[in-house]
């Protein structure tokens, strides 16, 4: 185990690794700790400067936020619905698209694959102009459809699924299912999808996060206050002359957008990170 001929010994490298990891962890967490502490302070306490321990005004700030003009609870629900639907549609149909290219030899296969790889580079923003015009014509402004349905065609997720499929799915497995009389659609749902679970888990998280974080497109589509998602409400808070606001309430609103995700993440983290680790390509 020990390799002392040249280079640092395992022991030294381990110590360095721990120091770097602890510093990075601090850098990741310190912001959220300050947010937590400040969300528990009153406006007067906040103006007096920073203290590193929590105060007692959390409930008061929460009460003020719930009774403010910002529809934060509706925003949270809207964000959740859009992100969950996007994650589901994106992973299911991207796996299906990858399976079409992976398992079948048809005339346009090479073309379809090259085409999808080529359009992977096109950011959604560069088509936003035409997108808004089309959605206006289709009367889909202020609807969730333009934010959910397009995730069915996600070239980057397709690319990840295809690469993963190349390493885990052998055609002989599909052929065996055919001999057993399994229909193609049934084979996809009951054999291919379960095999792809680790990749689906990883991509479902990434898609959920991308949709949850998305501010650009929803801000262009959603104008009705009851349809707005959390990022739009946060942007409105920034746009308001917020120094006149109760700062305790401002921190509470940021905490409201951030902490539910952190809690859910801490519960699921074993599956999230573990799912990725499981996703290691097996021979």
């Amino acid at each position, binding site marked *: 185990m020990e390799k002392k001929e040249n280079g640092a010994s395992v022991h030294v490298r381990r110590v360095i690794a721990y120091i770097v990891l602890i510093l990075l962890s601090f850098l990741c967490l310190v912001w959220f700790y300050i947010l937590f502490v400040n969300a528990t302070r009153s406006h007067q306490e906040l103006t007096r400067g920073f203290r590193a321990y929590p105060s007692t005004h959390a409930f008061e700030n929460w009460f003020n936020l719930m009774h403010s003009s910002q529809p934060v609870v509706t925003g949270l629900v809207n964000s959740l619905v859009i992100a969950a639907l996007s994650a589901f549609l994106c992973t299911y149909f991207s796996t299906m698209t990858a399976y079409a290219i992976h398992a079948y030899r*048809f005339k346009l296969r090479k073309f379809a694959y090259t085409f999808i790889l080529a359009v992977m580079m096109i950011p959604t923003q560069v088509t936003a102009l*035409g997108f808004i015009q089309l959605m206006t014509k289709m009367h889909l402004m202020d609807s969730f459809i333009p934010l959910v349905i397009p995730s069915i065609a996600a070239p980057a997720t397709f690319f990840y699924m295809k690469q993963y499929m190349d390493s885990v799915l052998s055609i002989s497995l599909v052929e065996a299912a055919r001999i057993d009389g399994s229909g*193609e659609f049934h084979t996809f749902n009951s054999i291919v999808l379960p095999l792809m679970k680790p990749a689906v888990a990883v991509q479902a998280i990434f898609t959920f996060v991308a949709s949850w974080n998305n501010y650009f497109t929803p801000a262009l589509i959603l104008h009705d206050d009851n349809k707005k998602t959390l990022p739009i409400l946060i942007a409105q808070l920034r746009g308001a002359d917020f120094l006149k606001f109760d700062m305790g309430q401002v921190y509470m609103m940021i905490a409201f957008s951030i902490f539910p995700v952190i809690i859910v993440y801490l519960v699921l983290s074993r599956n999230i990170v573990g799912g990725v680790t499981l996703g290691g390509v097996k021979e």
Partner: protein
Amino acid sequence: MKKTSKVVEYNKWGYIFLIPFTVVYAIFQLIPLISTIYNSFFENFRSGLKQIGPNFIGFANYAKILSDGDLWKYMGNTMIMWIIGFVPQILVSLLLAAWFTDPSLRLKCQQFFKTVIYLPNLIMASAFAMLFFTLFADSGPVNSILIQMGILEKPFSFMSSVTATRCLVGLMNFLMWFGNTTILLMAGMMGIDQSLFEAAEVDGATAGQIFRKVTLPLLRPILVYVMITSLIGGLQMFDVPQILTNGSGDPARSTLTMIMWLNKHLYSKNFGMGGALSVLLFLVTGVLSIAVFKMTGTNTDK
């Protein structure tokens, strides 16, 4: 004979499974892309209450946008802030992924560290930017802490310094993405055949040598993926600077990115210039992506 026809019959399912992608892509991406390009050849904007156009003007929008200094300024802003975030991101991620997957290190609390470094990625970018704006405000906690520690005498105005604002954007991008990149690279490293590492170790290679000569080359496909997605993400940079500066890109428009500029055109309904800018962004993304593909020698044959 019978077998061949069966295979052909199966293969038509390739088309069937491609239908959802094709239909959705055509409606929500392809038609908008074509109409965006179409718009770029027209003069079409509002001047006060008056609607000008749409009048066909050929490449005049492009000529205007390219001769105007703004485009280059905003492209520079975008790339500078991307690089400030990406360079530490890829280096730290490679290092962490190598450490996490190195069996001889046997790091404890791996689960904890992975959980923590991935955490900022889940944070809504706009909320994170809003948080940084309040934390780094003149009367905010960061200034308060620095003064209490005796590092500063009076508050430093982060939001009026070009370097500080750009670095804040870079720092946020780094924090949000290095955990994600680490996990992707780890998945790639775990996919490498362990016997290769063992063989290298038997041959007396150091950890550094194994990393450079075995891990890195075998990791190339996943590195390509990370680089392409980050590059595209970088060009799309919007939420963080938009919220941090309330869409102004201040100080002195030094943090105004290409997409923030496009967003301004979309809101003011300047569809001609917005279209031309979109097409240029489309071309820049394309050229950069092809360059990355070529540079790293990926083939799309398989």
